[in-house]
């Protein structure tokens, strides 16, 4: 195994977690009061971890760049959260959720971690209901479920199209309770600029107060990173504007391995790009695929006429439409996993069937669903011979009740009414499965440095299923990390407070100050956004939905060049010792310019297609992904060695003892 010890406990899969919990070291309550833990990032994973750690008795310091933990981007998750509750009695179980997640991840995730995730998923729902999270309910007063892509059961709990918001506010409330008790010190508008190691252990961070520009030292016995994903690498994505890789990247540079950086999720249903000014893309929840049918015109000339505005989609007859997902994947139809749906959309658009001005959009049509619901409603309301108009009206009401906020959001952005004309959608970067490598305890390769939620790599393999991100964030934060970290902290009960005047802190602070100065001293040719947009274009065109060796190599070179140009010529106005949003952005983009290169290098190394990583050289004659299990059933964990190009690959072999590794088929 070398240095990569995943520390997966022995024993049967179903007992691993329970046995592990029974045998890890605990810290007694009196000693917990003497132990400090830093949590960076306060979204679902960080917020729930901070609340639970504080509740257990540790002294917790939280850091987030937002003005309040309530604004973390977990809030934007729309569709729902999976849990193997089997409330619908449709044959769901912990094993099935585990199986679906491993299969959905295209057999590139760690079996034991995924099983644990499925196992604790049920607790999450119990926990959240107890906290007052208002999940959707049926008329009988019990919790409602819906289905998501890549599965054949209904196990997704939801709160309209705002599930992430409700779960995050639950975690935020739990945090608030501990803040009020004095067990959490919350530092908002603060950004972690470096990790401080003392004797090889993570012992603190250097943070910048984003309001005053002050550089601060904070020490602790352990540091938890829950800073989310790095999809903003692509400039245009469904991420929030501030999302960044800084904390994770700084940890990487201090010795934490970065795993599977090229595993990125491109979500199939986002609102298409409208112009060069675009700053971000908006997701339309996957739950829409429960009822929406995806299509493009069958004939090229129709597609052309639509693009030129000569033809309306509603004028196109049923037989002239190509419901390509239903055609290609009859078993799962419109509910195939995200990577499959995204590639299929790209394939159609590349072939010339795209339906908006730029030719990069497909239709998501609710007409059939509106009529189906309408007829059902008419019948149950005793209207036997309702005319089409009435049926449509009834149907629209039902669709509005289900997806009203999403439809409203679409209409505000695109200025078209999706009840009357099909939505236009196109894939966009949405999530990163890759992240800091962690063992079963969620510890990175730096002792005392932990990573939770999207920030780590552990559970989703090469593709994440819908409604699993919320599940993982809360599982890590509420139920896994607070216990596994005790095993490490039990050795620290006699350590005492970590001083912040040590040479290690001095050095880290000096390094941070030098870097800020360097960013401020660019010769001033271009703005930060200029570089970010350029990087995004390279990433999207050469490391996006489909990749090939030639373009990946080009990307590596271009990014390295762009990085050099950035450090030479970036213009950051203002000063470093005051509020300065351009400086904040500059620091983040500087990190992306390094990670981008590692990303391309990772993609170039992985000579196979799996999940979200599609290499054009490796596909079946029908254009499906061609995995290479013999040579690539491993996690790529990269060790930092100065420049991204010098990064060293370590492999964690993935062993499947409880699941038969098969070709993933959704046909």
């Amino acid at each position, binding site marked *: 195994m070398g240095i990569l010890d995943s520390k997966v406990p022995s024993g049967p899969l179903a007992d691993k977690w329970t046995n592990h919990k029974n045998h890890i070291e605990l810290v007694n309550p009196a000693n917990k009061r003497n132990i400090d833990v830093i949590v960076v990032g306060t979204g679902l994973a960080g917020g729930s971890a901070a609340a639970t750690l504080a509740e257990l008795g540790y002294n917790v310091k939280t850091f987030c760049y937002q003005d309040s933990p309530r604004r973390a981007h977990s809030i*934007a998750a729309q569709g729902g959260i999976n849990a193997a509750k089997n409330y619908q009695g449709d044959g769901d179980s912990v094993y099935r959720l585990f199986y679906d997640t491993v299969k959905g991840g295209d057999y590139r995730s760690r079996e034991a971690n995924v099983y644990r995730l499925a196992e604790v998923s049920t607790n999450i729902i119990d*926990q959240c209901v*107890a906290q007052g999270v208002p999940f959707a309910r049926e*008329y009988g007063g019990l919790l409602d479920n819906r289905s998501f892509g890549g599965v054949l059961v209904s196990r997704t709990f939801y709160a309209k199209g705002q599930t992430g918001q409700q779960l995050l506010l639950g975690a935020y409330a739990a945090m*608030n309770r501990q803040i009020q008790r004095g067990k959490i010190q919350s530092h908002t508008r603060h950004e972690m600029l470096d990790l401080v190691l003392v004797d090889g252990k993570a012992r603190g961070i250097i943070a910048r107060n984003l309001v005053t520009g002050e550089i601060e030292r904070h020490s602790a016995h352990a540091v938890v990173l829950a800073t989310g994903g790095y999809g903003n690498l692509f400039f245009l994505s469904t991420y929030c504007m501030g999302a960044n890789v800084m904390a994770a990247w700084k940890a990487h540079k201090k010795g934490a391995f970065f795993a599977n950086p090229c595993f990125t999720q491109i979500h199939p249903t986002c609102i298409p790009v409208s112009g060069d000014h675009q*700053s971000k893309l908006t997701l339309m929840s996957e739950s829409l695929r429960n009822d929406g049918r995806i299509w493009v015109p069958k004939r090229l000339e129709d597609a052309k006429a639509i693009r030129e505005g000569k033809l309306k989609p509603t004028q196109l007859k049923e037989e002239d439409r190509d419901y390509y997902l239903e055609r290609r994947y009859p078993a799962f139809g419109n509910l195939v996993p995200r990577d499959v749906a995204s590639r299929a959309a790209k394939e159609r658009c590349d072939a010339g069937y795209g339906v908006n001005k730029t030719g990069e959009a497909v239709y998501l049509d609710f007409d059939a669903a509106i009529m189906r619901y309408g007829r059902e409603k008419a019948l149950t309301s005793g209207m036997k011979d309702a005319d089409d108009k009435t049926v449509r009206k009834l149907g629209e009401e039902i669709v509005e009740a289900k997806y009203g906020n999403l439809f409203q959001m679409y209409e505000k952005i695109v200025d078209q009414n999706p009840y009357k004309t099909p939505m236009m959608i196109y894939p966009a970067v949405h999530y990163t499965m890759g992240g800091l490598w962690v063992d079963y305890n969620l510890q990175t390769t730096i002792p005392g440095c932990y990573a939770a939620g999207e920030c780590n790599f552990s559970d989703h393999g090469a593709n994440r299923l819908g409604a699993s991100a919320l599940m993982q964030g809360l599982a890590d934060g509420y139920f896994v990390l607070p216990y596994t970290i005790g095993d490490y902290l039990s050795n620290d009960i006699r350590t005492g407070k970590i001083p912040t005047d040590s040479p290690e802190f001095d050095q880290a602070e000096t390094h941070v100050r030098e870097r800020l100065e360097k960013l401020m001293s660019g010769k001033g040719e271009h703005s930060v*956004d200029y570089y970010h947009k350029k990087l995004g274009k390279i990433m999207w065109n050469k490391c996006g939905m489909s990749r090939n060796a030639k373009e990946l190599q080009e990307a590596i070179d271009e990014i390295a060049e762009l990085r050099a140009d950035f450090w030479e010529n970036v213009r950051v106005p*203002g000063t470093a010792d005051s509020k300065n949003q351009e400086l904040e952005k500059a620091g983040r983009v500087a990190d992306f310019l390094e990670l981008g290169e590692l990303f391309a290098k990772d993609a170039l190394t992985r000579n196979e297609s799996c999940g979200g990583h599609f290499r054009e050289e490796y596909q079946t004659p029908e254009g499906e992904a061609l995995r290479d299990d013999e040579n690539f059933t491993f996690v790529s964990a990269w060790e930092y060695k100065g420049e991204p190009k010098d990064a060293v690959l370590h492999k964690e072999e993935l062993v499947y003892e409880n699941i038969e590794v098969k070709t993933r088929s959704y046909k």
Partner: protein
Amino acid sequence: MKLHLKIWRQKDANSKGQMVDYPLNGVEEDMSFLEMLDVLNEQLISKGEEPIEFDHDCREGICGTCSLMINGRAHGPDTRITVCQLHMRSFNDGDEIVIEPWRAKAFPVIKDLIVDRTAFDRIQQAGGYISVNTSGNPVDANAIPIEKDVADQAFNAATCIGCGACVAACKNASAMLFTSAKVSQFALLPQGQVEATERVQNMVRQMDLEGFGNCTNTGACEVECPKGISLENIARMNREYLNAAVKA
């Protein structure tokens, strides 16, 4: 289109601010309002000036970070949206647009258009939670059925994004809609009723301490709230508070 922008500039909390004029050309209808400001900022940077700082993050109307008073209205002329969802098609060529930060004593300006809304966090910390331990809750989620209608009402109250538009739009800078939304969510749900008496008193006490104004039921908050949080929540909070006062 061409716009005449008048924007509040203020160096930091202790400096005096003023309105500054910025003409802007080449604005497209499909741009969001914040993308329009991005364009202006790019121009300012290229001229060597400091860009205008404004709060924003998710740019899809859910995080509650963006907060601009546009032509005298919180989140601009359109309703049921945040500034990041406002598009330039709501304006016309040649328009003058006045952009100011939220104004309230409890929301001091940090820089330019950015204000400090931590008062809202402190109100939540005073009682905006249910005191259950997060570690291992043994009660099954379906053990307490909740009437769909009640659950939906609680959800509607819970959709508040904490942006502060209610305070900004209210002529009294009152935070009643914000505070009442959380009080309502928990007052409606059986899980929240155990602590209801204490919760409403503590949250209202904190709201007053922060220096927000008194509610005079003008209803401006409800109109400007991007999530359509209803005034009904304020009535419910008043009711809860009176009940608590009677009990105490």
